[in-house]
């Protein structure tokens, strides 16, 4: 195990980066008063100091508390949307790949066509069309509405390569039913691959949600990372020299994306050892 990890550096880097984040969130939740992530809690617009290591924003939020309270919210959006996306995608992909024929054609065409459409734009139309502002969970569902496209496509092609393998043929000859083959034979072999797809879907969902929030289409009062950036832009923090306001969310977001990216690469390597030389 240890020796394997030494070879799969991407996986290690990913786990370490995400580990730092988790430690930050857990220790932060224990040490930091997250009620300070609400307005009027601390003096406004303080540069980082001993009392406020990350500084404070214009509405009097402690940015350290905002990060501690907001990072899990952002991850939550990502995970809800990612899990929904991969779940739906996997079901569609297995159905398509296993049954083939017209079912496959329809599902594949929808996914292919859907993927040529820039997702953020469709999400913008959806978000604008919804009445009122969104909550964090509704935000996740909006993002999930397109998050299944990419998993469907990639999982389907993966299942197709497996379907032709000998052991699947043997299972079929033994009289196993479709679902039995899918869950008994195909799934276990695809688990690492599904995990990699999940992680990259989570990353894509976070990217989409942060994008929507920066455009002002997110939950106004949630202290998550995207909304923090929205306030940064709304208050023209750059030209006014409040550098600490955007530094904290920036660092956290970069950590999130880097961690998820390396984790995906590492998991891909487990799923497909042939790639190992490539990365």
């Amino acid at each position, binding site marked *: 195990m240890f020796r394997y990890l030494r070879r799969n550096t991407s996986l290690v880097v990913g786990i370490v980066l995400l580990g730092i984040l988790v430690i930050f969130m857990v220790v932060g939740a224990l040490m930091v008063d997250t009620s300070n992530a*609400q*307005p*009027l809690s601390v003096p*406004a*617009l303080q540069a980082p100091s001993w009392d406020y290591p990350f500084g404070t924003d*214009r*509405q*009097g939020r402690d940015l350290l508390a905002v990060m501690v309270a907001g990072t899990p919210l952002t991850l939550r959006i990502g995970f809800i949307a990612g899990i929904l996306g991969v779940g739906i995608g996997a079901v569609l992909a297995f159905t398509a790949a296993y049954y083939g024929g017209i079912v496959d054609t329809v599902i594949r065409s929808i996914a292919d066509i859907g993927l040529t459409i820039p997702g953020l734009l469709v999400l913008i139309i959806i978000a*604008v069309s919804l*009445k*009122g*502002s969104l909550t964090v969970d509704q935000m996740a569902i909006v993002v999930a509405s397109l998050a299944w496209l990419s998993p469907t496509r990639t999982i389907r092609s993966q299942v197709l390569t497996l379907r032709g393998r000998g052991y699947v043929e043997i299972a079929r000859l033994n009289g196993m039913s479709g679902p039995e083959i899918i869950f008994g034979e195909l799934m276990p072999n695809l688990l690492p691959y599904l995990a990699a797809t999940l992680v990259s879907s989570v990353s894509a969902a976070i990217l989409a949600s942060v994008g929507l929030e920066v455009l*002002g289409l997110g939950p*106004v*009062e949630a202290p998550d990372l995207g909304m923090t950036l929205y306030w940064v832009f*709304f*208050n*023209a923090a*750059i*030209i*006014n*020299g409040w550098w600490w306001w955007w530094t904290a969310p920036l660092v956290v977001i970069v950590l999130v994306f880097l961690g998820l990216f390396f984790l995906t690469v590492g998991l891909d390597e487990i799923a497909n050892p042939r790639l190992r030389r490539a990365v």
Partner: protein
Amino acid sequence: MTGLALPRRDVFKAGLATGAAAMLPAGIAAAQQTTIPRNQTLILIKNGGRDGRWVDYALWNPYSIGSNHQNGPNIICEPLAYYSAFADKWYMWLAESYQFTPDFRQLTIKTRQGVKWSDGTPFSAEDVAYTFNALRDLGPKVKWGVDVNQALDEATVTDPNTVVLKFKIPSPRFFFFVTYKYDIGVYIVPKHIFQGQDWTSFKHFDIGKGWPVTTGPWKVVDATLSQKIFERRDAWWAAEQKLAPMPQIRRSIWLPNTGEQQTAQAMITNESDTAYDMLPASFPTMFRGNPKIITHTGQKPPYGYVDWWPLSLYVNNEMAPFDNRNVRWALSYYIDRNQIVEVGFLGASQVSALPMPPYKPLLPYFDAVKDLLAKYNTLEFDPKKGDALLTDAGFRKQNGKWTGPDGKPLTLEIISAPLGTFGPAIGPVVSEMLRRHGVEASLTLPPDFNDRFQKGQYAGSIYGHGGSIREPYDTLRLYQGKSIAVPGAHLVNFSRWKNPDFDKIVDEVYVTDPQNVEKLKDLFHAAMEIWLPDLPDIQLVQNHHRIPMNTTYWKNWPTADNPYINGASWHLTFPLVMWNLQPA
């Protein structure tokens, strides 16, 4: 290129420009006018353009659909009169005088003699009568049409300088309505040009023909996606008749907004002389970059003047539990308005006790209710009093949260406009203050805010009051029962509060001569005696216009020390600023 008289930062670029000018296509080069030095040019950045472009550059008929007087027609179309609320001063303009009959059913307007349109046609009472009758006939199709249609029966010309307006209903405020102040006032158009045109689509733009035609001192010499350029006309009736000095500005360039940062930068580098309503935080940045920049209040907060539009926390008076005055007062006691000023506006604001601005002509009315305000202090922050009121109303506090007699938690969803500076700036602060005292408040900025607010599909909201600026009628009308659900953004009873006795007083105010201040004061006191104990909406802070003004090339800007008018370049009164500015 050089004809624009824009500052070039270095000789190198200027050289390039001159070289390039030789290669310009004839069409572009022809549009350039004679060279006018920068210190005789007034450059301003306006909020009217979208995304750095003028979308209405070809629309010089302020009544056409899509045009906006804020973007230029405000200095082209002269009014019957100007009114400065800051100086409480009238400037009779195309009208020399006016006279109502005692029952306010007829208005006689005398127009000026010796006024000519820029194409040489004399201006006369015919133009005024034509404008009003056309507005009456067009009704809802054009701006002001409905207002004129509701009041006016017929405008007739009795001699070339007299027009008589017969009303359907007593209309004591009609002349004030047509007078230019802020964004309200009727534009008088030339009959010989507009007759036979479809007002909703007529553009009134053809520089070759000398259109737009105007009685004012400015002519449009260029209007494109990127700029609108005006030049001074040297024949202006008002200067000849000594009503106003001839403007010192020879050319004015109006640029569309490309963003807060860009505008701040342009102010700092003297590429612009004034701009639009900017965020409080941008001002210290601009002062640091260019000490010659001032605001209405110099370089001190609030960096601007009080707009006519005080902000409130509205609650829907038709919705339980906010139909209970104790609940409304409790919310008021939970709000620390100084914190809204300090945090929401970075100190650049002030609290507001009544839903109208503290303008000079309105001050007597504030004085008139001093005794009531002492008893019902709408600015008081005292959570204990709030707690007591809620307890009286049958609420109980458990785990720091209020629960109603029905066992439901006390929730308040506050909505506000996503566009504009007030909702996002103070909304989170207000909702957090209420949460701290056990009210489950939340804030959303829905895209269809205006629609929901107007239809009463809301519990709480942060919004302003488009009411009085000179006498109390308009503000009182905001709370009349019959103003509920009147469509529109101003003069509407958003709080949906109703009181028949209050309504009767307001009806009496309507038929009272606006000049009869003593009687109005008594009526106002009587109305407030009903209004204040009920507190239909929770008073918060004044709304400010924070406009940067650059003294590098121009001085005598309107300021708190010299408040001849408000300084907004988008308002109908901006011509006053333009003829008052002096070269620095």
